[in-house]
Structures are given as C-alpha cells and as structure tokens.
C-alpha cells in the first residue's frame, strides 16, 4: 500500500502580471483523510494545485509532497495522481492508448493501464476513441490517469464536474475509500455541498488567500443553527416576531430565526395567538458560513492573524463601498443600511440618509419594512425609502417588484447581524 504523504504549502504566492492569483498561501494537507479545497470560481484553487504539481511556477514560496517538490520526485505518477481539467485528451486516441502513453513515461508496467481502466469502470470502452466519450466518461478517464501509478497522494480539481448523480456518489465513495487506505486526498470544488459529505477537513480559499483551515465540523458553530417557523397567517407571525424583537428572514417555506430556541418562538406565537404550521430546528447552514468566510464577513482564526487583518480590511472596504451608495452617511448609520437591505429584500438604495440616531432609525426602518413585507408575503416588498435629516422616514413605493429577493439564500441576515456587531 502506497504511503500517503503530507502536502505542504509555504507562503505560496503567484502573480500573473499585475494580478495576484494566490497570495501567501500556507496550508498542510494530511494523509488518511479527505481534504476539501473550497473557494469560489477564480479564488485561486486551480493555480494553487498546479503550483503543487509543478505545472505553474510559484512567484514565491514552496509547495511540497512529503517534503519534496513535484519536479524532484523520483517517480511522480507513483507518488501523486492528479485529475485536472476534463479535456486533456487527444480525441483521436483510444482510452487505453492515452493511459499507455503515461504509463510508459512513468515507467509503469503495462498491466496498470487495464487495472486503472477497470477501477473507474471504463474497461468496456478501452479501445474506443476518447473523442466519442461523454463528459462523465472523460472525468473517469482522468481519474484512471490519476490512479495509474497507484499513488499515495491524490489531487483532484473539480472531479465531479460533468458527472451524473450516480457518478458523484461513486466518486465520493471512492475518495473516502482511498483516504481510508491512508492516502492523502485533496479535492477542490466551488460547491461546499459537494465536498461537505466527503471531506473531513477543509481548506477554504478566497481571493487567493486562505480563509479557513480545519475540520469540517469546526466550520459551523451553535449560533449558525436556525429555527424555521411558519404560520398560515404569516403576517400575524411576522408582526409577533417583530414585536418580540426577533431577527428573522423570510424564506419560501417560512421564516428563519437564528439560534435554536424553538420553545421561545413557540411561546411568542402562543402569546400572540398565532397558530403555527411549522416549527422546526434546522442544522447549521455550512453554505452560509462558507459564503461569509469567502466574502470576508466572517473571519476564522485558522486563516492566521495577517490574513484576518486583511480580510477585516476587505470587509471594512466592502462596507465602505456600500456606505458610499448612501450620501453623507455617518459611520454609525452603517448597520441601518445593512439591515434594510436584509429585511426589505429590495435592492433599493437610500437616496439620502443622514441619521442622527442611527439605531433608532434602524429599528424604525426594520419595523416599517417588516410591515411591508407582511403586507405582501412571499414577494418582495418593493419599497424605496429615504431618511430625512430629521430622522423621519418616508417609505416610497417604487415600481412593482422587478426582482424578487433571493428567498432561498438566507445568508443576508447574517450579514446584517455581523454588521450590527461590527
């Protein structure tokens, strides 16, 4: 059984001209577990992996496999198997010939070709030209290439792209099995949901920087839990929650409240005489945490002090940009802006907000908009508003909601919450 090796990135930086694709990236990938490498498109995942594999030269820093740079490995394909893009095939070549080429280059026995094809279920089509393969078959052939040298380390860049649901499950099972055998498995994805069930550990990268490194279970905290509550008379429920000072966001299937206090919410509803149709706890939404990390709203200590500071800066910048949309807005008014955007769900902007008592105004705006939302449940409260210098709020009806708010995405309230605590 091949040994899994420790993958180490030390201060890896890559600049393409003026663009910094990867910035001071340091991380460790341990053997024996599946490590998910997550980040939005363009975050620098592929560049980082290609640096590890010696295809792209790092501007600074070092990436090693068991302490050795890829190009110095005695037998690269026996040490590391990798799946990069799904299109690295000559369409006129058969699957078997494709693998034979690299088996020969790596000095592997010819029998490995058949074994690798068998391992990915392509034995039947070994003699067929790759040009006729579906995307899923190409992904499998890419994986067969990775398995060719029976390597202790597997590096896979978005390996489930193009796979059907059955193929995705098969891939997950295979990756888990490979890790269980003691191999190092590093698999990138831009979808958290895809690696959430497979990965024991996560590296999250955003804008070329590491924003999280740790166990998948460390990603979420208790506070990320939420309660979904709904009532046939949603307007009454909305009013009751608002009156009780509870933050919530409207989903298609009800209202989501942070925390896991089902009893408390049930009590509020009872006191208000609202009959509930739904009251349930929901597990932590990792997607939400992921997006917060990626957007710099949330900073995890594993990202390192320097990174944290930079991310905080970035977050502050982002808020500043939002604030710029509001004329002459004092610093204290920032939560107002966020709050409004979150609760109203409308992407209107305040024409002029000069609040003297920002908190009070924020509460008022929330109440107003909640009321609006309640009056037209399920659709965006298409309102614009302005806060005059006197603190009087005018709610302006704009054109009928052109854009419904993204009801599925309940990450907005967390932004608001963060904003308030900022």
């Amino acid at each position, binding site marked *: 059984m091949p040994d899994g090796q420790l993958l180490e990135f030390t201060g890896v930086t890559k600049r393409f001209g003026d663009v910094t694709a990867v910035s001071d990236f340091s991380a460790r990938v341990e053997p024996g577990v599946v490590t998910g490498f997550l980040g939005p498109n363009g975050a620098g995942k592929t560049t980082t992996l*290609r640096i590890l594999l010696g295809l792209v*030269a790092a501007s600074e820093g070092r990436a090693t496999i068991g302490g050795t740079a890829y190009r110095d490995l005695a037998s*690269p394909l026996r040490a590391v198997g990798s799946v990069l893009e799904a299109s690295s095939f000559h369409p006129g*070549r058969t699957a078997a010939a494709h693998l034979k080429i*690299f088996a*020969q280059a790596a000095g592997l026995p010819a029998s490995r070709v058949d074994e690798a094809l068998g391992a990915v279920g392509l034995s039947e089509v070994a003699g067929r030209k790759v040009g006729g393969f579906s995307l899923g078959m190409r992904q499998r052939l890419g994986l067969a*290439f990775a398995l060719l040298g029976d390597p202790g380390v597997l590096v896979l860049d978005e390996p489930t792209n193009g796979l059907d649901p059955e193929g995705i499950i098969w891939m997950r099972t295979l990756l888990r099995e490979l890790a269980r055998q003691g191999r190092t498995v590093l698999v990138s994805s831009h979808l958290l949901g895809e690696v959430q069930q497979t990965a024991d550990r996560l590296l999250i990268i955003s804008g070329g920087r590491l924003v999280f490194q740790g166990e998948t279970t460390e990603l979420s905290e208790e506070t990320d839990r939420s309660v979904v509550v709904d009532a046939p008379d949603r307007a009454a429920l909305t009013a009751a929650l608002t009156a009780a000072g509870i933050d919530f966001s409207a989903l298609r299937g009800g209202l989501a409240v942070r925390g896991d206090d089902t009893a408390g919410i049930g009590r509020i509803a009872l006191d208000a005489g609202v009959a509930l149709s739904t009251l349930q706890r929901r597990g932590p939404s990792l997607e939400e945490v992921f997006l917060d990390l990626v957007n710099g709203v949330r900073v995890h200590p594993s990202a390192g002090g320097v990174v944290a500071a930079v991310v905080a800066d970035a977050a502050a910048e982002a808020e500043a940009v939002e604030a710029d949309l509001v004329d002459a807005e004092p610093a204290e008014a920032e939560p107002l802006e966020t709050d409004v955007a979150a609760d109203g769900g409308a992407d209107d902007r305040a024409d002029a907000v000069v609040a003297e008592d920002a908190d009070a105004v924020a509460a008022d705006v929330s109440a107003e908009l909640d009321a609006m939302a309640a009056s037209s449940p399920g659709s965006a409260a298409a309102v614009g508003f302005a806060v005059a210098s006197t603190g009087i709020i005018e709610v302006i009806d704009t054109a009928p909601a052109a854009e419904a708010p993204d009801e599925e995405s309940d990450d907005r309230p967390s932004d608001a919450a963060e904003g308030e605590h900022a």
Partner: protein
Amino acid sequence: MSLAASTRSETTKVFSTAAWWVIAIVMIVYVGGMAAGMAGLFGALSDGQLGPEAGMIPSEGLPAMVYSIASSIGYVFPLLIGTLMVTAEFRHQTLTPTFLATPRRGIALSGKVVVAALLGLLFGVMAIVVTVAPGAGLLAVFGIETQLGEGDTWAMLARILIAFMLWTVIGVGLGALVRNQVAAIVIVLAFTQFVEPILRIAGGFLDWLNNITSFLPGAASDTLVGTSFFTAAGGVDVGSIGVGLDWWGGGLVLAGYAVVLLVLGGLTSWRRDIT
C-alpha cells in the same frame, strides 16, 4: 522519467493518432506522383520523343534530380509531422499529463527530439522508396541510366535521410516555440511553399541575394542532399551550392536551424506555466 521512458511514451503518442499516416499518405502520393511525372517528362524530352528539342535536356543529372524530389519537394512533410508532435499537445492540453508524468521538461523535449528524428528516418525511407521506384522505372523505360549501381546515388539517398531527420527535429523546435497549432501550420506552409521558393528564385537572378538565400533552410537542405529541384527545373543554379558550401556545410546550416529553434522554444514557450 528517464529519457528512454520519455522516448517510449512519445513513440506511442505518435502512432496512436491518425496524423502520422495521414501525412505519410499525402507525402507518398505527392512525392511519388511528382517523381514519376518528372521522370516521365524529362525522360521523354531527353529521348526526343516529344519533339525536335530533344537533347536539350542532359540526361546525366536526371536520376539524381528525380530521386531527390523526396527531399527537395517532400521536406514539408517531415517538418509538418515534427511540428504537430508538439502543437497537438498544446492544442489538446495533453501537455498537462505529459508534464505530470515527466516534470523535467527538458527530458520531455529531448524525448520528442529523439522520436522526431526516428520518425524522420521512417518518413525518409518511405519518400525515397516512392520516388526511386517509379522514377528509376520510368527512366529505364526511356533508356536513361538509372545510376542505381553507383555509390554516389546511394550516398545521396543517405543524405536525404539525414535531411528528413533534421526537418522533423526543426518541426519540434518550431512547435515548441509557436505552440499554437494553426499558427504553426500556417507558418510551415507559407514559408516552405511561398516565401522561400520566391526568395530562392529571386536569388537565382541576383548574386547578392543568392548569398543569403543559400542559407535558407530549404536551400541548406538541398545543399546537404547535393541537388535541387530548382537547379534542374529552373535551369539556373538556384540556392544550392551557390556559396560554395559542401554537403556537410548545408547539413550544419540545417542542424543550426534545428538547434536554434529548440533552444529558443525550450527556454521560452516550453518553460511557461501550463494553466
């Protein structure tokens, strides 16, 4: 990841797609047809069968001219297959697995050079067979001495093989430098079929230009082989041996092109990030 492993891998690469035999067939038809046509035409002319101009075409240089059509006309084919050996990897992104299996890029390029030279040898043999067989046959029909019994002829055929090997290696260097398959093919065809022939014909009339055009790759190739289609067909000494280069001098010039392109390509494009 030794050179031997890389060479085996590159050999499989070449013979596992259609490009090599498609180009080989086109070469055989083109070069073979040309040799047969020329042997028939000049044979008939020197035999006087086509008219009173008979005898104007001296028959002693004919066999060498006909046989050397393999390289003087056919050199574009080894050049093309050598170029495709590299650009196909860029085009289909197979360079990624190639460099994953052989991360020492110099070794990967060396493997290609070795296989390209061997492939040039194979193409050279095919080209010689399809020029000499119909060429000698038709010359014999017109009663012209085929010169196949002479050592000089066989030495020339051997030099054609050397030229073919150098041309495929030049192709590898060009491909490594240019990367883009379409651009590389356009460069190969435009240069070999248009730019160089025109310059060499012009050089045939202008001595100062001839000193330069003699060093063009096609001219150097003809110098290496020792005869030129331009020489015979144009009736003027064009490009070949114009500046007193020996056959090996031509060979060195041609090898120089291969080395310069390989070094330039190997140090620049070949080193670039594979993204």
